[in-house]
């Protein structure tokens, strides 16, 4: 049994539905047609190793999430004591190290390309914000180690955080609060912002080289004269 929820657009000439679901669907289809969302061809200037580091960053993030989930399932008595626990704990740490290394190389590449050109400001901004939030996620991770290192870091950080006033609600000496931020709030934020960043890359494409960009802008300003018939 089905219920008619409004006019349909499948039939030619039919009036377009103004329901929010239909409008959201049309906007999503317009912004992300399937061939743009999952393209199989890219511009020639993408053939560079520098573009690999964005993908490596996403892969490292996936490993951080996967190993973090395993640690959450098994618990501290496993990752502190058993050999397998030590291994997964180390995988979690080293995938974070790889994540930041790849992300910073990606950032260097995009900075020198001025990758915010051509209405790509939001793509750049989401990258910067995801980097900043990732620093917070890593910081709370160091506070959640339950060893002398985490004690040292938290006691060193508390004065700086308290000096900003944020310490009133964000107490780095509160282990439970830092653990919750590390395993719930910040990972959700990083995944959402990084996902938005990737979608914006799909939406606007990669930034063209400077020479190509200048040629296009000249063509826009002064279009070539038409040949006489």
């Amino acid at each position: 049994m089905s219920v008619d929820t409004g006019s349909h657009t499948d039939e030619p000439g039919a009036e377009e539905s103004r329901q929010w679901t239909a409008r959201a669907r049309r906007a999503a289809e317009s912004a992300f047609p399937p061939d743009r969302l999952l393209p199989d061809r890219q511009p020639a200037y993408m053939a560079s190793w520098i573009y690999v580091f964005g993908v490596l960053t996403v892969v490292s993030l996936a490993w951080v999430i996967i190993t973090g989930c395993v640690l959450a399932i098994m618990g501290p008595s496993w990752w502190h004591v058993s050999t397998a626990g030590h291994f997964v704990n180390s995988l979690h740490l080293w995938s974070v190290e790889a994540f930041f290394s790849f992300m910073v190389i990606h950032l260097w590449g995009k900075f020198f390309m001025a990758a915010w050109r051509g209405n790509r400001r939001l793509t750049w901004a989401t990258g910067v914000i995801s980097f900043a939030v990732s620093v917070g996620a890593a910081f709370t991770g160091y506070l959640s180690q339950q060893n002398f290192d985490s004690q040292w870091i938290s006691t060193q950080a508390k004065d700086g955080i308290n000096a900003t006033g944020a310490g009133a609600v964000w107490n780095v000496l509160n282990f439970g609060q830092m653990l919750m931020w590390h395993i719930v709030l910040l990972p959700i934020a990083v995944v959402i912002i990084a996902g938005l960043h990737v979608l914006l890359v799909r939406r606007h494409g990669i930034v063209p080289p400077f020479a190509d960009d200048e040629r296009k802008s000249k063509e826009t300003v002064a279009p070539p004269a038409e040949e006489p018939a």
Partner: protein
Amino acid sequence: MVLGALLAALINLNGSGHYIHWGFIQISVANFVVILLMIAVFVLAIVLPFPRRKGRDE
């Protein structure tokens, strides 16, 4: 175990860290080496040619 012992013999991490002091800049040797390696990877990523499949010029 053998591999672990071999690596531990090459790089002994049991001990206080080494630091570089340059004016107000202070950085551990380990962090400095990581930054140098990242710069090296960045330069290689720009310089090295990317393998391209023949017949794909777009």
